[in-house]
């Protein structure tokens, strides 16, 4: 029986083998030494029809407690923001979905222009001069920044604040071992980083990476951290949330050299961890050290405007072992989702969204205190859409007990931070209504302490 994803008929095969001048498909594999030929059938379950695969995989999906089945306050780097229908519509356009890297620009003006527009949006949000076409995620772009900093400064140490997402720190450490970079972490003091402490650590560092808002949701004294990094000659690198940048200052404005982060919140579903896009933007002076694809404007032979991949001499397919990165496949489709989403929001929407997050988080803090008697861990810090609270007993148990009532109350910080076994990190996005927040407070009143 033929397969739905194949087209050749028996007579096609015969004719083609005749043109090639062989008697069988077997003969086409004549170059394979006998010893490396696979002597049996693959031990896999028999092929399924589309309907069967749908039933099977949909049944697996049914067994997950996603945010449509559980009232979720989980964040910690991935957020349940609303993704508008226009994002799905555009990303499912086959001409965009099933194309590859636009090596041939005349075939790919759609994707190229979209990336150019994406780069513009990222530069507008961060205040930077140049953005790449995307990196894998919010962790790998931080490792990329270390590679940039190592070559720009010639130094062999990077500093990362402890309030930076633990996954980002772990990926930086993994990659840095390869680059030959030492990674130094600076502890937090009451939920944020002490600029003086950072300044001491930043001496002789290639880069200082900090997160704004930080992993605890608190606002770091970003201008002071940047100054502390720059004083020691390190590149200040801001890991930021795109959706905070309608209310929070653009990293370039307070002096960051690079701005990067996880784009998921802006236009991608959490999807159990991916695929998403990492964004990476920098000041003009680093343009030729940037990793990844960059699209530039040009003209065609008739003088009309068009777009091409540019500055390719940075890249692995030309520079090989001297490339600025090994990246080739990136996250273009997800970045396009980001562009569509940011276009949907517009500048007004972005600001409103930021204000709604700020208000809802303030409301949540207030309700948890009033109804459940839970105090924010860093009570005197301003927070964006996430905050830490002490729950009086092991937070992982609190999570389990709350989930039994259909509410996922947040992330147990003890998983990453010593002395925080009884701390919960609670995230609120615009998708959490005040009534849902009240429900969280009621459930925590019951299960906490």
């Amino acid at each position, binding site marked *: 029986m033929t397969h739905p994803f194949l087209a050749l008929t028996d007579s096609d095969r015969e004719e083609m083998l005749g043109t090639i001048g062989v008697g069988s498909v077997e003969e086409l594999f004549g170059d394979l030494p006998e010893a490396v030929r696979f002597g049996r059938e693959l031990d896999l379950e028999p092929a399924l029809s589309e309907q069967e695969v749908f039933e099977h995989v949909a049944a697996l999906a049914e067994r997950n407690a996603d945010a449509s089945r559980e009232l979720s306050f989980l964040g910690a780097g991935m957020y349940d923001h609303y993704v508008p229908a226009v994002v799905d519509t555009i990303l499912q356009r086959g001409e965009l979905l099933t194309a590859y890297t636009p090596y041939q620009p005349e075939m790919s003006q759609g994707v190229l222009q979209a990336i150019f527009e994406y780069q513009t949006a990222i530069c507008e949000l961060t205040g930077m001069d140049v953005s790449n076409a995307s990196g894998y995620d919010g962790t790998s772009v931080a490792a990329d920044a270390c590679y940039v900093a190592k070559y720009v400064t010639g130094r062999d140490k990077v500093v990362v604040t402890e309030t930076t997402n633990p996954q980002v720190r772990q990926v930086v450490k993994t990659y840095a071992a390869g680059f030959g970079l030492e990674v130094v972490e600076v502890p937090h003091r009451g939920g944020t980083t002490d600029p003086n402490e950072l300044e001491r650590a930043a001496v002789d560092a290639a880069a200082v990476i900090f997160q704004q808002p930080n992993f605890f949701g608190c606002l770091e004294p970003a201008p002071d951290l940047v100054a502390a990094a720059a004083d020691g000659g390190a590149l200040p690198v801001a890991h930021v949330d795109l959706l905070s940048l309608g209310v929070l200052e653009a990293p370039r404005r307070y002096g960051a050299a690079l701005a990067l982060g996880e784009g998921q919140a802006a236009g991608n579903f959490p999807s159990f961890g991916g695929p998403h896009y990492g964004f990476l933007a920098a000041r003009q002076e680093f343009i030729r050290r940037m990793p990844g694809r960059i699209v530039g404007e040009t003209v065609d032979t008739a003088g009309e405007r068009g777009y091409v991949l540019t500055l390719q001499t940075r890249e692995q397919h030309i520079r090989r072992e001297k490339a600025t990165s090994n990246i080739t496949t990136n996250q273009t489709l997800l970045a396009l989702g980001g562009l569509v989403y940011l276009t949907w929001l517009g500048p007004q929407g972005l600001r409103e969204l930021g204000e709604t997050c*700020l208000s809802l988080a303030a409301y949540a803090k207030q309700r948890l205190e009033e109804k459940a008697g839970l105090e924010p861990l860093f009570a005197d810090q301003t927070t964006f859409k996430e905050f830490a609270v002490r729950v009086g007993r092991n937070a992982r148990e609190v999570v389990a007990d709350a989930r039994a009532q259909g509410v996922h109350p947040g992330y147990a910080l003890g998983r990453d931070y010593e002395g925080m076994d009884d701390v919960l990190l609670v995230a609120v996005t615009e998708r959490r209504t005040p009534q849902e927040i009240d429900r969280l407070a009621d459930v925590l009143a019951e299960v906490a302490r």
Partner: protein
Amino acid sequence: MKLIYEKSQPGRRASALPHYENLPAPPELPDELRRSEPPRLPEVPEFELVRHFTELSTRNFGVDTGFYPLGSCTMKYNPRINERLAALPGFARLHPLQDDDGAQGALELMWRLQEILAEVTGLDAVSLQPAAGSQGEVTGLMLARAYFAARGEDEQRRKVVVPDTAHGTNPASVTMAGYELTHVQTDARGNIDVDDLRGKVDEHTAALMLTNPSTLGLFDENIEEIERIFHGAGALMYYDGANLNAVCGISRPGDMGFDIVHINLHKTFSQPHGGGGPGGGPVAVRDVLEPFLPVPAVVRREEGGFGLDYDRPQTIGKVRGFAGPFGVFVRSYAFMRMWGPRLREMSEVAVLNANYVLARLKEAYDLPFDRLCMHEFVVSARSLKREHGCTALDVAKRLMDYGFHPPTIYFPLIVPEALMVEPTETEAKETLDAFCDAMLALAREAVEDPELLKEAPHYRPVKRLDEVRAAKNPVVKYGFAEPPVAEGEARPVAAEAPKGA
């Protein structure tokens, strides 16, 4: 066509957000942290947004549009059921930090995918974490380092051997992993030059990185000897899975002797390429390397069910967030379940299609290595260039006028004027014939009217684009006009173009 920023008008918007009554006012932000100037995001109504991006899509060419024989990229059909499955709320809205008991379906899917990949590659353990092939490469090399470090040999073994036909990602990954590169040449039949190799592999060698079949589309006939050389020297063998579409169910990297393999889920296993990504680059390894795999590992628990295991004291760490690009796993898993053991047939047809196109094009293009090919092949436009001044680039651009996406050009580097063609198993004979007819027709055009090629494309939304100009004076974002001055007279557009760099 206009940029979305050029369609923007202040006061328009596509979004309406929920408004909640009686919320506290947002807390006052310190002045130095508050946004001082709003970002100039586009301001358009929703229908304008949809029309803009729909128009962009009409200026793009994908596998859904037509034949896309981009060598080394495996541009096969992407089944639509995969999109429906990945979008199910149980997957799309599942948080990656959900407790294991709330993610059993997702974990089971990942575990099953690992099992399938282990069987297809002939290896023991799989990590799905790497986000793409090149991240798989660097992960694999870090695994090699961890393995040798555990044996006290990391300082001794500093070299990684890469053939001159390799993708640029291989040498770039070698540098990123902190290794030194050893080049090895290609022999007259398109295999690794084994004599060259023998002198270059010793106790300082950590690993070989090999794509097999190679980027020439040729299976290395000396693979057994190569295996003896590397393992004999105590080194590891790394398999770049970019060309796995040639050999599924026919020959397994593990059986060839490879210890570490990355698989490109977006190539062989049909994750749509998305205009450049996403991809997936799982790594499969022999059992001795399993302790070093990234965390978390997806495991089946003895007590039943599935879980994420972080307790791996010898792990290299993490190369990406969470457990990997899960949506890609859903698509590739569904794809592989629809093939099952028939994956062999998939690869056979991919190889048959490639050989058929090669047989038809041989008469008009130079063939650097006169052998049967695997799933792709490389021909050269060298004679066309010498005799008629038409380069591989001209051939590629003219092919667009016939409605085909061009092959990969100027790669691999060892073949001048290279055209690398990979039809995949997807295409019908009629399509392959139409492509061959076009390639032959334009080879004749090169003789009769070379300008037709040199000025191509003629029928795309843009004419040939000036890439040199783009690189010389990079304009990498829109140059916003200054706000109108008081009299309402617009100032000239301020170029945001760079000051040199």
